[in-house]
């Protein structure tokens, strides 16, 4: 075996060792925490929605006000330095709800504010949220296209 081959074999062997010794995540615990954190956020969202539903003429207005309230709450908790701890605790349970999206924009905005209002905050606000918006729109277009084609096929 030449020297390079020995090195490659050594690296492969090491990769196996690293993988084997990597700390195993406690999946049931992580899932339960994600469920509790995500569930609590959704519970709060439902509570806010019910509140507005009783006071608004249509469901559309109630939904809009619920989204605005939850986004504001996410931004506020980010500014207070609470939301990153929710993320540490709940993982995707904190990231997936709309409050998590609000956090990703607010966190970037707070961070890059220090490089100025234009090239800092405004330009880099979408660093984390950008892909969600781009692929959200792409997925929306594709879904709309498929739905239209299906409707046409059905006559």
């Amino acid at each position, binding site marked *: 075996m030449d020297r390079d081959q020995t090195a490659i074999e050594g690296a492969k062997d*090491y990769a196996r060792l690293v993988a084997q010794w990597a700390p195993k995540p406690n999946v049931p615990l992580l899932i339960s925490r994600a469920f509790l954190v995500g569930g609590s956020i959704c519970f709060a969202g439902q509570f806010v929605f019910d509140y507005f539903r009783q006071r608004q003429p249509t469901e559309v207005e109630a939904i809009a006000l619920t989204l605005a309230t939850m986004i504001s709450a996410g931004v506020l908790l*980010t500014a207070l330095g609470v939301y*990153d701890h929710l*993320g*540490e605790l709940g993982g995707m349970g904190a990231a997936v709800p709309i409050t998590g999206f609000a*956090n990703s924009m607010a*966190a*970037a905005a707070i*961070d890059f504010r220090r490089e100025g209002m234009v090239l800092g905050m405004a330009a880099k606000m979408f660093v*984390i949220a950008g892909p969600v918006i781009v692929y959200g729109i792409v997925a929306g277009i594709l879904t709309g296209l498929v739905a239209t084609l299906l409707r046409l096929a059905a006559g």
Partner: protein
Amino acid sequence: MTAKRVGQFTVQFSQPPRIVGAFTLMGPREGQGPLGKYFDAIVDDYMWGEYQPEKAERKFLEHAARRALERAGVSENDVDYFIAGDLMNQIVSSTFSARSLGIPHIGVFAACATSTLGLSLAAMLVDGGFARRVLVATASHYQTAERQYRYPIELNIQRKPTNQWTATGGAAAVVAAEGEGPRISHVTVGRVMDWGVKDANHMGAAMAPAAMDTLLRHFQDTNTTPADFDLILTGDLAQHGSKLFRELVKREGHTLGGKHMDAGASLYSPEQQPGAGASGAVCSASVLLAYVLKEMAKGRYRRVLALATGCLHNALTTQQGDSCPGVCHALVLENG
């Protein structure tokens, strides 16, 4: 010509230079950790009154450097070179500090291995007769590293158990031919090693092969074994990297046993929950210049092998799918 070289990689000084003054200035989290009482000063506000963490990091570096000069009892004019490095792009914390210190500056980059690289170069300059005294400094800051390498601070991110927390603080030392303090007797500058670890969240695994390589080369060059040292300090392999390192060293026939200590695994207590431990240029620097120097002064350790490790990736190389190269630079500290 090469009378000061032993073996293939190691330098043995003919008149070992001394560390005649050192200062460690750490953040609040580090001050509350198990080694808190060893640090020379703690700054309670990790932002140190600044709006931008980059400015705070600079302050940690410069203040540590100035206080190290005081400890050594010398002024800027008595020092011939200022060797400094940090984790920021273009090592700005070092160069901006050099701007106000006004000492001829040698900038170095070795990520978290900056401490032993800086001290090694300083010792070579002094023993080579190129300098009377050299000031060495480094700093790191949790927020600046997060911003540059990872995500915005307030983002909802769940840390991996192998993640390391970048230590906040500055550490500096004066290396001189004359004076009181432990001697730097040997230096082994390491090779850059890459065994294909692509996970930037597992820097300990990326650096362990480099630590093993430099350690074995040092043993080989100087014909020593773990028995010749009271302490073998690595940094910052952290908890999981240290396990891998000890395994790799064991496979090469050496057992370190209770003599091995890792700076990254020692800076925080498990209750402080920093994942696998600490990292950052100041981590190994502060453990070496605070804990090790003070325990050497008490006589607990007489001969210490310090192996600071650095992970040489940046945010771009990680995104481009490259693996993380590691490096490790070693030096031997001796009493007397």
